[in-house]
């Protein structure tokens, strides 16, 4: 019998469960390597070569090169691991979060100052049906 995953019905949200973790193991472990200053320097000097040291899929490597956070998450990345890439690039958590929403940094910051994204209309997949993004 399949495991019940009610969280799959939440829009714009990927829960980092055991399945995602298995898919993203090397992607996330590559991110952990950026905790060391030497590795950050080596990565920045030649990203593609550094990525080739890791048994990641081609899609995962391309998503890193593109800094496509949503794609990295869909391929098994977890935000706390991916944040090491952001730190290497000198980005804050807020800049990283903004990059995933389709908003500019300023629009995102203003949304947060005005109380953040409302849960209304953002609870169930059906509420996002037919939309490219949330309002």
């Amino acid at each position: 019998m399949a495991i019940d995953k009610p969280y799959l019905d939440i829009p714009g949200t990927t829960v980092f469960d055991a399945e995602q973790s298995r898919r993203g193991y090397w992607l996330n472990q590559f991110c952990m390597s950026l905790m060391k200053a030497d590795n950050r320097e080596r990565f920045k000097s030649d990203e593609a070569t550094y990525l080739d040291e890791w048994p990641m899929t081609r899609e995962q490597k391309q998503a890193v090169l593109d800094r496509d956070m949503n794609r990295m998450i869909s391929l098994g990345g977890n935000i706390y691991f991916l944040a090491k890439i952001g730190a290497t690039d000198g980005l804050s958590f807020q800049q990283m979060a903004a990059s995933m929403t389709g908003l500019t940094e300023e629009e995102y910051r203003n949304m947060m100052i005005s109380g953040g994204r409302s849960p209304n209309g953002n609870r169930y997949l059906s509420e996002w049906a037919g939309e490219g993004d949330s309002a």
Partner: protein
Amino acid sequence: MSARISASVYTSHVPAIGVALDMGKTDEPYWRPLFAGYEQSKAWFAEHTPDVILLVFNDHATAFSLEMIPTFAIGTAASFDVADEGWGPRPVPNVVGHPQLASHIAQSVIQQDFDLTVVNRMDVDHGLTVPLSLLCGQPSAWPCPVIPFAVNVVHYPVPSGQRCLNLGRAIRAAVESYDEDLNVQIWGTGGMSHQLQGPRAGLINSEFDQAFLDDLIATPTELATKPHVDYVREAGSEGIELVMWLIARGAMSDLDGGPPPTVRHRFYHVPASNTAVGHLILEN
């Protein structure tokens, strides 16, 4: 003569709060209202500094990578270094532990059927140091020993609210069976509503957060039955950190027939970076 838990403290542990403190930005208009909400708490803490803090937090892919993912981990070392999370270590003091009490709690709580991982080497990240900064300010050394208690809330499934509440009860029993007159506080950290990932990032749900604070104070047993999916849907994927508050709440004696705790302070503010900040002090 025995140790006792005198109070529980609850607070969010947003990394940007640590940055604001470390960079001297606390008087900026963006941050002033947040730090103002902790002024009373700092005064309370200065008057009620315990002998030991048991600080419940989560590691954010710092000490624990995907190589090993302990659900509950207790730090039994004599000291813990402040981690470099990718931006360089925070300029805060190292954390001095309490190996004797920590080992005692590990032994007692494992014998009460909770599978704790015993950790003798662990760097601690913003999850632990930001709450200390909020309550203690910027001292050259933390005012008392701290036992780090790390909970997995990153890799699903995370422990249920019920298990967290029961763990808190087991921790209180463990502390009260320690034969030394120690004043212990337990802190639960993380939350409140926030989501850091995906197109829904930036979610904040003040109504959920305020109800959570009400229920944590008055009806923790009912609150503990809230399923994970409700936290994720209503409070964001990272809002699940709130289950850690139930560990601290479970350690208050009213869960085992004592009088209800006294609310010393309650504070709520939006936003700190991506996050709703909540804070409570309950005296046992």
